[in-house]
């Protein structure tokens, strides 16, 4: 009876595991073994180099710099983007007029093509004819005027903010779904007990939203660390290496210099880093949940 029940349980995951094995595990094994080869992606012959690719990655300063830069963008996304998403979701969860309108509008940036986002933001941020500089001058801050995307001091932060703007819609949506699962009765009860809005936010909303926040956090880390389309559209990874991110480096190895094996090794290294970061985040959130 027990065996039958266990087999039954396996049936639930079987379809997922079959698809996953064929379309993920097999390509993964292929990529994994290529990480130990020198291969240009075309020739039928490959050269075994052992750990050579990984040793080269360890010494590749630009690669590590690109990881730090992706980390910086992620940090901004985790704080700025998610705070924005949460606040907006919280505001839209309240009894407020036009909330259906807002719910629709906030989902526009994720739907828009990167081409449009890139063009519009380039136009806003352009150093010579840009709208932002124009406004800064007319508002009386001419000393702030700069070339936002090609000034090495501001390029990365600017890219991070545009990225956050493009991505907050997802966090908004998931937070909203999470807030909706909090029964209204709890708020009612708190109000009867004399709690004000802030107290009920702190006592009810926040603790119940922690698992959702963890989820959004991990999705943000993964989404942001792997983002590149918008960066290509805005700066192409420049000026110099100031907005390079790991995925751009992997693409550069694969397409630019035709070093397929090295690109695979970079992908694996990057994946390991992401797994570690997500695991740490998961552990922290678990502890946070135990304390509350």
């Amino acid at each position, binding site marked *: 009876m027990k065996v039958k029940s266990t087999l039954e349980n396996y049936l639930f995951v079987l*379809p997922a595991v079959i698809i996953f094995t064929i*379309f993920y595990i097999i390509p993964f094994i292929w990529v994994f073994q290529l990480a130990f080869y020198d291969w240009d992606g075309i020739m039928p012959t490959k050269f075994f180099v052992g750990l050579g690719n990984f040793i080269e990655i360890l010494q590749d300063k630009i690669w590590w710099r690109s990881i730090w830069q992706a980390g910086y963008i992620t940090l901004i996304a985790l704080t700025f983007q998610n705070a924005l998403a949460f606040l907006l979701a919280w505001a839209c969860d309240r009894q407020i007029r036009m909330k259906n309108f807002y719910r629709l509008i*906030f989902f526009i940036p994720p739907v828009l093509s990167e*081409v*449009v986002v890139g063009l519009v933001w380039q136009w806003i941020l352009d150093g010579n004819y840009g709208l932002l500089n124009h406004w800064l001058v007319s508002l009386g801050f001419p000393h702030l005027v700069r070339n936002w995307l090609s000034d090495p001091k501001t390029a990365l932060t600017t890219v991070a903010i545009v990225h956050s703007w493009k991505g907050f819609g997802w966090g908004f*949506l998931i937070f909203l779904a999470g807030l909706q*699962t909090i029964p209204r009765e709890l708020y009612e009860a708190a109000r009867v007990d004399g709690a004000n809005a802030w107290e009920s936010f702190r006592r009810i909303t926040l603790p119940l939203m922690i698992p959702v926040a963890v989820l959004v956090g991990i999705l943000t880390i993964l989404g942001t660390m792997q983002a590149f389309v918008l960066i290509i559209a805005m700066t192409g990874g420049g000026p110099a290496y100031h907005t390079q991110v790991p995925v751009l480096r992997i693409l550069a190895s*694969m397409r630019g210099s035709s070093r397929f094996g090295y690109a695979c090794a970079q992908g694996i290294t990057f994946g390991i880093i992401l797994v570690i970061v997500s695991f740490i985040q998961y552990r922290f959130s678990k502890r946070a949940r135990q304390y509350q």
Partner: protein
Amino acid sequence: MKTGLYYKTKRITINLFIHLFLLSVAVTCIFPLLWMVASSLKTQETIFRDMSFIPKEWHFENYYRAWREGGFGRNFLNSLFYTTSVVIGIIIVASLAAYAFSRLRFPGQNVFFAMFMAAMMIPIPGSFVPLYVLLNKLHLRNTALGYILCMINVGLSTSIFLLKTFFDKMPKELEDAARIDGCSKLGIWWHVALPLAKPVLAVVVVFNALNVWNEYVLALIIFDAKPLMPLQVALMTFQGEFITQYPLLMAGLTITALPIIIVYLFMQRYIVKGVTQGAIVG
């Protein structure tokens, strides 16, 4: 002594600030959309010269041209078909797995779950080459089925993760009641768990629909026949290596954005109404 008027003014001021905040974010969101629509009505000559939101001449024929020159008709239907199939596939496969990971016990459970999570994190560069060879061997290359299965796999891990988080959060009481009444595990999944998970299912639908709708690289690689290509590939013909036909591109992008916005409009009802029907968060 605080009067009713005090509370009323306080509430109005707070609401005013909230509206100001919401509106200012909303403006930045609408701006690119308006620009896209306005640009789609201009010509290649005026698109970057006349930056105003209201074009002097309205070139509605851009939409007609984009539709015809891009060969949108067939590709549009293809994209609809791929998106629906992939989303339905993911909903079934991922929710089954997520439910098992959340509620059922079986040996190796954690290993399997860790595997899916790792897959979400480890990018595999150049996976298109083994996929191509694999699909070719399975005789699935250049078929809709091969593409749909690949895309189901792409969305699987994240969807399982999303669904499992919400299943974990959901109350077990209803399921226990159902079990006592003699409902099978699968019955509980279908009749209890899924209806309760509507808000997150709606998120999964929107997330995957957008993903599949916007995908073109894999489609371009594994399809040879133009009749199988999705909409995004048709759209790429306006963005050539050397020449980009901006107004047609913008018209095409506007056409492509519409279905996703409709899906979202439809789904957000579930996200918002969803679970409030008597569920208790435990």
